[in-house]
Structure formats: C-alpha cells, structure tokens
C-alpha cells in the first residue's frame, strides 16, 4: 500500500500550533498596548484586565456547558486574542459593564454557539464590537483625549474611578473625553467645514496629518504587524490588500475633491486601520484561505471601510466591513480555488 511514495529530504516542518500562533500575536500587541497607555492613560490596562477576567469565566463556563475539555481549549489562547482585539476597540474610559457585556457576547454568540474555535463564520471580536456600537452608541463614541490635547493625563486611580463609578471630578471631566479625529472630520463636513480646515485647526490633529496619539498607535500596530509577517504568522495578502484598497480609494477621492475627502495618509493612520490590517482581518478562522481569496477579502474590507467612513452613518466602519466580508468568505473561497498542479485552469 505504498500509494504516497516518500521522496528525499529535506522536509519542511511547520512548527506551529494554535497556542504558538496566539502567543506571537499577543507578543506583537505589547508595543501598541504600551503606546496606548502612554497617550491615552491607564484606562486600557484596567479594561484589559476586566476583559481577560470576563473572557476566562465565560470561556470556562461555555466549555463546561458544552461538555468540552476545558484545559486545552482554555490554554490555547484563542479567547485571549478575541479579548485583546476587542479591548483595543472600545473607549478606554468606558464603564466596566461595557467590556464585560462585549466580551461575553463575542465569546458566547460569536464563537461557542457556532461550535467553538474554528467553526465561527464571523470574527468574534468584531461581532462584540458591533454589538456594543449598535447597543450603546453614546458610550462608544466618547474617546479619551491624548494628554497633549487635554493637558491632563488620567492617573490609574482616576481611571479606575471613572470606569467603576462613572464619575470624575467635574473640573477635568469635560476635558478628558471627546470625539475621535475621524469623528471630527465627519461632523466638520456636516457643518460646512472643509477637510483641510478641520485637519489644520482641530486640537486633536497632530501636524495636519491625523490624530495625536492615533498616529503613534497605528504605527505601533504596524511594527507589531511586521513582526507577525516576519515570523510568517500572518500572510502578506491581508495587510497589502486592505491598506492598498483603502489608500487607493482615499487617494482617488482626495485627488477629485481635496476639500471634501481626507487624504490617504489620514485614513491609513486613523481609527483602527492598522489594528484591522494586521490583527483583525488576519484571523485565520474567519478570513478567506486561498491566496487570491485573501487578497480579494482584504481589499473588499478596505473599500467598505472607506465607504462607511466617508458616506456611512458611523465615523469608523471596520467592524461592519469585516463582518460583511466574513459573510462572503465561502463564496470567495469557492471561486478562487488554486489550480491543482498538472490540471488545466
């Protein structure tokens, strides 16, 4: 029965496991976490701890209820990635129950009800984020202002106070949270202020390019993402397709009417662009798996993000774009099957 003859060495051994991949992603997200703490204060650390605790409890409870072995699934770190991805997306000073609800929804409805890791069609973190954004829009749009803008950095105790009691001394309350740069551009346009004016005059914008702190945060994600690319944890088609499509859309429309459409660099360094490019859309479970399919999937998200940011009702559209493209993944995979070697196309 020697149907599969062995040829000579060398063999390529892909030394990966779910836990290893997840650990690399976790390592890559340390730098953005530090940058986030530096610019937006300790809020995210508190949120992350809360989210991890919720994630562990929910994951344990769901595995137990489903009659699955708890230890291997709990230790593979997949829930940790969902939790980390979601934590980066919510405002750092939002009330404690927000992240608890979001993580619970993401893990229960986004993952376990579909059959657990590997069976979920939608990115759980983005599902959790979309759930929060649709359900609690008021809490989800007030982002902590970076210290250079507000002139005040919240201390750890102040962050804890805000997250658990919702109160801050009135004197600093108004200064510390505000709209994000993407929001500023959008509301500016509705008030008849052109994009260059907004970029030049808004306090939250750094050097006419994009938001204070947001630029550095996005660059940190890019560095983390390059580490993931270097370790072959993620495929290049995702970031290239996504950033390429988003940048191209932005560049074309900016060239047509610079007063109305923000430049490409603004889009690439604002909101969750780099987070999505290297950490969100690269999720191996919910993304397309063929080489061409990965590219189409990522580019589709890029186009949709631009469309939602520019003409949609929300300032950022990554969650909705990812979820929409998640639906299309089976179709994309179906039509982009690579040619089997030796067969005609």
């Amino acid at each position, binding site marked *: 029965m020697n149907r599969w003859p062995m040829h000579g060495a060398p063999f390529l051994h892909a030394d990966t496991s779910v836990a290893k991949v997840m650990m690399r992603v976790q390592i890559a997200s340390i730098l953005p976490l530090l940058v986030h703490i530096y610019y937006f204060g300790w809020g995210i650390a508190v949120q992350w701890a809360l989210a991890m605790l919720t994630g562990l409890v929910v994951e344990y409870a769901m595995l137990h209820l489903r009659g699955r072995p708890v230890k291997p699934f709990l230790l593979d770190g997949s829930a940790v990635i969902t939790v980390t991805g979601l934590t980066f997306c919510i405002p750092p000073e939002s009330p404690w129950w927000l992240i608890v609800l979001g993580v619970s929804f993401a893990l229960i*409805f986004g993952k376990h009800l579909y059959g657990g890791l590997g069976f979920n069609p939608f990115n759980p973190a983005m599902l959790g984020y979309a*759930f929060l954004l*649709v*359900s*609690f*829009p008021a809490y989800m749009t007030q982002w902590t202002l970076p210290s250079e803008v507000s002139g005040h950095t919240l201390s750890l105790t102040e962050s804890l106070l805000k997250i658990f009691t919702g109160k801050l001394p009135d004197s600093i309350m108004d200064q510390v949270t505000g709209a994000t740069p993407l929001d500023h551009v959008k509301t500016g346009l509705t008030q008849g202020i052109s994009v260059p004016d907004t970029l030049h005059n808004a306090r939250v914008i750094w050097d006419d390019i994009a938001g204070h702190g947001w630029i550095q945060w996005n660059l940190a994600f890019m560095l983390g993402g390059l580490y993931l690319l270097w370790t072959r944890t993620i495929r290049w088609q995702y970031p290239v397709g996504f950033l390429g499509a988003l940048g191209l859309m932005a560049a074309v429309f900016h060239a047509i009417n610079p007063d109305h459409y923000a430049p490409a660099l603004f889009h690439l360094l604002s909101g969750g662009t780099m987070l999505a490019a290297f950490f969100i859309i690269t999720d191996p479970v919910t993304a397309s798996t063929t080489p061409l399919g990965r590219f189409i999937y990522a580019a589709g998200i890029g186009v949709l993000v631009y469309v939602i940011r520019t003409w949609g009702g929300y300032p950022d559209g990554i969650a909705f774009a990812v979820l929409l493209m998640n639906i299309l993944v089976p179709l994309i995979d179906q039509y982009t099957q690579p040619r089997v070697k030796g067969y005609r196309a």
Partner: protein
Amino acid sequence: MELNPSPLQQAREIFYDGLWHNNQALVALLGLCPMLAVTNNAINGLGLGVATLIVLVVSNVLVSLIRDYVPREVRIPIFIGIIATAVTIIDMLMAAYVHELHKLLGIFVPLIVTNCVILGRAEAFASKNPVWASALDGLAMGLGFLIVLVVLGGLRELLAQGTLFDQAFLMFGQQARDWTLHLFDGGILLAALPPGAFIGLGLLVAGKNWLELRRQSRLQRIPVETAHEPA
C-alpha cells in the same frame, strides 16, 4: 395509539400539538416575517397574536365547513379568498376599536393573509377534519403562536427598554396607562433591532429543544432502570 381515539383525546392531542409539539413559531418556524418584525414589545406581540388567532379560528372553521365541496385543484385560491375575507374584517375591526395599535402594527395586519401559519393549517388540518376539530386546531395553533409572540416581544422589550407592557393603553384603553412595569433604565438597544429579533427567536427555539431533549432523556431512563432489576 388507539385506532379511534375519543374526541377528548383528540382535543388533547390538538392542544398539545398547537401549544408545544408542533408549535407554529418554535417548531414549524412559520410566519417569521410578522413575528420578527412586530415583536419589539409585548403589547405589539399580543395585538398581532390576537389578530392572527382570530383569523386562524375563523378561516379554519370556514375551510372545514366547505371542505367536501372544494375541488382539489383550486383549493389554494379558495382558501386564500376565505383567509383574505377574515383578515379584512379583523383589519377593519382593529382600525375601529384599537386604532392606535392598528397604526403601530401597520402593514402587518393586512399581511396576516400571507402568514403561512394560516394557509398551512387550512391545508394540513381544516380541509381534512370536522368543524369542531378545526376550530380547536385554530385556537390551539393561534394560542401557541400568540404565546411565542408575547414572550419574544416581552423579552426584547425588557432587554431594550427595561420595561414590560409598555403602551398597554393602546389595547386596553386608558385604565391600562399604569400597567407598564418599569424595571430598570436604559438597556441593550440591539434587542429592539432586527438582529435582536433573530437572536431572541433562536434562543427561544434552543430553549424549547433543550426542554424537549431533557424530557426525552428522562423518559428513556425509566425503562433502562427497570431493565436492570431482576425479572
């Protein structure tokens, strides 16, 4: 199963089918469109549920009455004609007596005509069974549908607004203005939106199946236990 069950047994079977075993909302998953669209609070669910229930009983009785005279080939248009007549009457009655609720439910009252539950029962039951059984079937199926509408509406209302029986006065008049239960402020907006309807219905179906599985495993356990005893 006896060959000729008594009318009482038949009636029990009909009710068990309508309320639980063959519940049109949870098992047959019929009439999803009105069910998902109007159940953003308990009173809307109750209003549409009652309307559907009445139409179901009336159409079942009429279809059963004429079942021997309807040619098989054109039965569907005839059934639809009967159902449409019943719906038109209900629609006008609602517009006259519960006008505000009628306005809120909007297009979904006339659309009861297209609710598959009603045509489904006319075709599957009323056209083959005597009048009394068809009337009971309409009542049982309608009640089963109504209960799911109210429970789903209540669930979504509770999650989205923290209230129960909000706007009860639309159906029960001014004295019902203080029937509303305010349990807490704020809520999860998603529950009131279309995804909330789908998720809520999914949870109800899952809950029903879970109860059913538990009951079956308990039923199966009894013979197993007795088998171990020495004969």
